[in-house]
């Protein structure tokens, strides 16, 4: 029944799913103290999955057109899996999290990654739905495992409700799309866009499509669907935060790239007002996201909550880029967006995983980290690199990423969007700077604890070093990828 061709084609997903089951089963039979074993097995399956990505060459539709394996999706998938690798390596630092259910946590993370892969490679809206749920449901559980039991359960419940509504909206939108076009496959939908049938699409189609996009924007965390982010970020354990802020954003941006950059022919058709309506709406959303993220972060005391607002702001930049370069081709825009996403992922991983060091002893707040540079200078430097990269200052990679983004947006005529982006950058610099000032300039006794097994921290510091390396020599990423 399963020919070897199909097995090879679906091997990335198979490795992840197999890994999830193996780790879960192992958790039943092996004592809980053997935590490194679990991590090792998880990493092994992850690496196998990454390696199987390299079998992907030319774009090919697999599984009867349900999934599309192409190079662009491949890059997103590798980014996702590598970030999971980093998160899994650093998870043992959160002792309370892994004390109770180590194998379950790792297994859920693997399933979540598998869902992310489904989303990135999907060609069919229902596959996309399954991927979305597979990505999110483990997250609902994992968010609830924070060490403040009351807060975490509450955040988990809120996230679950809103996420379930988003998924339901998504599938309802799919139903409407199917009812009007009798096709749920994304490539067939694009064919319809290119053909004269485009003129005859009924209103239900556009309503369905907007529901689908709304659901995606919820997952991305942009205005007006961003209300869950600060609460959930505050209450989740920091490693899960690291995964959540990187994986779901990677998966959704991958999908958005597929959806919006395969529309280049739309402009040549008459209902241009439809596309311009979309562009204007998304532009307005992006402006509000950027400003909300920057102004909201000014009042925050908790570090993770502040990073949540920074995420809203960053996704606002991404949305600004998408809304103004709507309809350009894949090749030009993919590189810029992927670079931005890479740098965002690295910076977020560095920040959250450094926070995860000390989070369980005491909450890391803006005031708590006073004088970090005297007690743990290297960790303070890691934080500094991450924060300055998020702020977008040269010579860090965040600056180059923002520069490329602004370059394209201004080239498309989005000068007002960029003015708002600049204003939000300036405002957000204030709160990044406040943290940096507390860490470096104040003398204080910080309560930040560093775990004693110090070897793994170098992975995070290596990532922080990458932030400067890519800032000075961004062509490394460019030449290596393309």
């Amino acid at each position: 029944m399963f020919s070897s061709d199909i097995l090879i084609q679906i091997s990335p997903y198979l490795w992840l799913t197999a890994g999830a089951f193996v780790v879960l089963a192992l958790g039943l039979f092996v004592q809980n103290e053997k935590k490194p074993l679990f991590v090792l097995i998880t990493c092994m399956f992850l690496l196998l999955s990454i390696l199987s990505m390299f079998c992907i060459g030319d774009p090919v539709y697999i599984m009867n057109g349900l999934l599309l394996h192409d190079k662009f999706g491949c890059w997103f998938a590798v980014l996702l899996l590598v970030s999971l690798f980093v998160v899994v390596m650093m998870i043992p630092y959160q002792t309370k999290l892994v004390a109770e259910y180590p194998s379950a946590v790792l297994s859920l993370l693997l399933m979540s990654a598998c869902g992310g892969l489904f989303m990135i490679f999907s060609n069919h809206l229902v596959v996309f739905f399954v991927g979305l749920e597979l990505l999110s449901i483990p997250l609902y559980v994992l968010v609830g495992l924070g060490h403040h039991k009351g807060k975490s359960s509450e955040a988990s419940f809120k996230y679950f409700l809103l996420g379930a509504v988003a998924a339901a909206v998504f599938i309802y939108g799919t139903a409407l799309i199917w009812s009007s076009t009798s096709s749920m496959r994304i490539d067939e939908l694009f064919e319809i866009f290119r053909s004269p049938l485009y003129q005859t699409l009924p209103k239900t189609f556009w309503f369905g499509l907007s529901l689908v996009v709304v659901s995606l924007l919820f997952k991305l965390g942009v205005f007006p669907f961003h209300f869950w982010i600060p609460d959930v970020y505050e209450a989740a354990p920091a490693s899960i935060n690291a995964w959540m802020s990187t994986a779901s954003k990677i998966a959704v941006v991958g999908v958005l790239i597929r959806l919006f950059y395969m529309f280049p022919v739309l402009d040549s058709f008459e209902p241009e007002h439809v596309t311009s309506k979309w562009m204007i709406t998304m532009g307005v959303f992006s402006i509000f996201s950027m400003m909300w993220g920057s102004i909201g972060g000014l009042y925050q005391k908790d570090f993770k909550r502040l990073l949540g607002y920074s995420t809203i702001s960053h996704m606002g930049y991404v949305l600004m880029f998408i809304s103004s370069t709507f309809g350009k081709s894949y090749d030009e825009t993919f590189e810029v967006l992927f670079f931005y996403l890479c740098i965002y992922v690295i910076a977020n991983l560095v920040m959250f995983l450094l926070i995860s060091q000390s989070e369980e002893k005491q909450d890391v707040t803006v005031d708590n980290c006073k004088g970090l540079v005297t007690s743990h200078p290297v960790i303070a430097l890691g934080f500094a690199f991450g924060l300055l990269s998020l702020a977008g200052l040269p010579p860090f990679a965040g600056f180059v990423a923002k520069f490329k983004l602004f370059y394209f947006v201004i080239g498309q005529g989005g000068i007002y969007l960029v003015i708002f982006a600049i204003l939000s950058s300036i405002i957000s610099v204030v709160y990044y700077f406040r943290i940096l000032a507390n860490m470096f300039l104040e003398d204080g006794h910080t309560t930040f604890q560093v775990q004693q097994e110090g070897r793994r921290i170098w992975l995070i510091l290596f990532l922080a070093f990458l932030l400067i390396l890519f800032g000075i020599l961004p062509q490394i990423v460019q030449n290596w990828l393309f």
Partner: protein
Amino acid sequence: MIVPLDHVLLVSFALFLIGLVGLFLRKDALTIFLCVELLLNAANVAFVGVARSIGDVTGHVVVLIVIAVAAAEAAIGLSIVIRLHQNKKPLEVQKLNELKG
């Protein structure tokens, strides 16, 4: 008599709206969860109706998939509610305000 597609879609839309409205107006956690299930089932009804009128079996398969996913989600959701209860949090949504939204 064959039910016209428009009627099915109308019913599905009505279910969707009821679910949405119930979501916002209800206070009890479990009832809100029921409304989420209602939303998912609205989509199911739409799928079945369209599959019937177009004649494509895909719709029915999709319904099975959505039911399976909804079941998984229900399992997770209920376990989250149980955990909420274990951690001595009230089950009324209004009272869940420890996190400043």
